[in-house]
């Protein structure tokens, strides 16, 4: 037990160090630095609300609706995309140090989590402006976030392993992610989609995370229990597949890189 705790401590120390360095580089290069994380979703919000007025039914609290969607969407795409490239990017460290492969993937997701929290700061004034009240149910956002992180790490691991063998997956995944922005109900409710694709869209983990977060953050409504079950299944299955793949391919990856 003690050994395990020690190991976890060590790993989290390494993760923090690497991510701290990366973040620092980003901040040093720019003057506004981390502020971009807040500005980015706000700009997006502005454009989406002005341009698609006609297509999207506008409720009073539409900005809150979009903002929650944008934050989670951004977390998914940043987290998985950077995790995908993490192994190839950290080639040298991976070969030289005896760190396990997973560390590099988790580290990338860790940075995305930090960005997510930072961007969320802008959510607070928006929620206050639109009189969204805090309820006991708001606390449900915590398990949702944990599940979401698990799914992102799982998908990221699977992608990172494929990426080592087959770099073209990067192109494919970029395309898929750009479509996801539209089909996950980020700014257009999925009821607007053609009916025959709706059942498929409702399986998508990004949609599930957004849907449950909205329910507990702004609507104060209970979510369908099936949504919870699906999200939990996603988390468990992607994590196990990721771990199994990682174990099986460990040596091969080291050789290829």
């Amino acid at each position, binding site marked *: 037990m003690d050994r395990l705790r020690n190991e976890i401590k060590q790993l989290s120390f390494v993760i923090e160090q690497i991510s701290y360095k990366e973040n620092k580089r980003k901040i040093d*290069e*720019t003057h506004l630095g981390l502020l*971009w994380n807040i500005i980015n979703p706000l700009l997006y919000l502005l454009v989406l609300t*002005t341009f698609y007025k006609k297509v999207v039914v506008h409720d009073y609290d539409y900005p809150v609706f979009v903002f929650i969607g944008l934050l989670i969407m951004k977390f998914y795409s940043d987290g998985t995309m950077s995790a995908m490239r993490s192994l190839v990017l950290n080639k040298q460290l991976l070969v030289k140090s005896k760190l396990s492969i997973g560390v590099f993937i988790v580290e990338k997701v860790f940075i995305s989590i930090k960005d997510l929290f930072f961007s969320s700061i802008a959510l607070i004034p928006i929620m206050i402006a639109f009189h969204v009240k805090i309820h006991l149910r708001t606390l449900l956002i915590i398990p949702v976030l944990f599940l979401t992180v698990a799914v992102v790490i799982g998908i990221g691991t699977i992608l990172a392993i494929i990426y080592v063998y087959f770099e073209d997956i990067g192109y494919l995944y970029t*395309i898929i992610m750009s479509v996801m922005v*539209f089909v996950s109900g980020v700014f257009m409710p999925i009821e607007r989609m053609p009916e025959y694709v709706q059942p498929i869209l409702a399986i998508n983990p990004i949609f599930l995370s957004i849907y449950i977060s909205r329910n507990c953050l702004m609507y104060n409504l209970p979510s369908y229990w099936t949504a919870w079950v699906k999200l939990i299944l996603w988390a468990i299955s992607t994590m196990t597949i990721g771990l199994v793949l990682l174990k099986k391919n460990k040596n091969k990856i080291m050789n290829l890189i």
Partner: protein
Amino acid sequence: MQYGIKQYIFVIRELTAREIKRKYSRSVLGILWSVLNPLLFMGLMSIVFWEISKSSTYPVYYIISYTIWSMFNVATKTSITAFEDNKNLFQKTKLPRLVFVLSRNYTAFVNMLFSFVALLISLCIFRIMLSPSVIMFFIAALFELMFSIGVSIILASLYVFYKDVKFLWENIIVLLVHMLAIYMPIEVYPESIRYYMEINPLFIFADVARMSILEKSFELDRMLVMAMWAVGSFIIGLVVFKSLENKIVEKI
């Protein structure tokens, strides 16, 4: 000028070839992605927007817009770091400095030509005949190239001094895509912003291109506005670069 125009073009071509090779060096399908990418995008976006757009030729509409958009997108995004990336060549050789920006733009243009192959494929699928007005598509593309060269020069020059420019541009460009009416036809946009939409250069390039293929016609006013934007941006780019050139050389 120590270099004739011929050498100039030679260097740009060499740099471009290097860039394309580097981009696809580790991928299996390589340059085929330039054709596949737009087709895949078209397929998926059509599932999402075909019904909303209420247009029977939506996939073709989308792929034309995508082709025009991706050239501007790729050209400006890659050009930002053009001076920084070629630091060595920049100091050692006496190449005209603008060559680095031009080659990145030319790369994007070559990429666009590959996307045009994809566009032709989609025209075959939807049985749309090409008419001579397709020449307007290429004129629009050339003007857009000129426009994006101007923008690229400004961005690349500023980037030497302010690294924020890169983040700023990456943030802006994801928003600019909505200026083209790429996902939905302009009629779907609210009236209040329609006017601003119709004078913005990105929309005009895309609009001329779409018109030339889908409606097989063109409007002279639009073409004139388009030319003005392109020449204007190009000249401003050159002026900015000339006034900053010494400082840029010093800084690098």
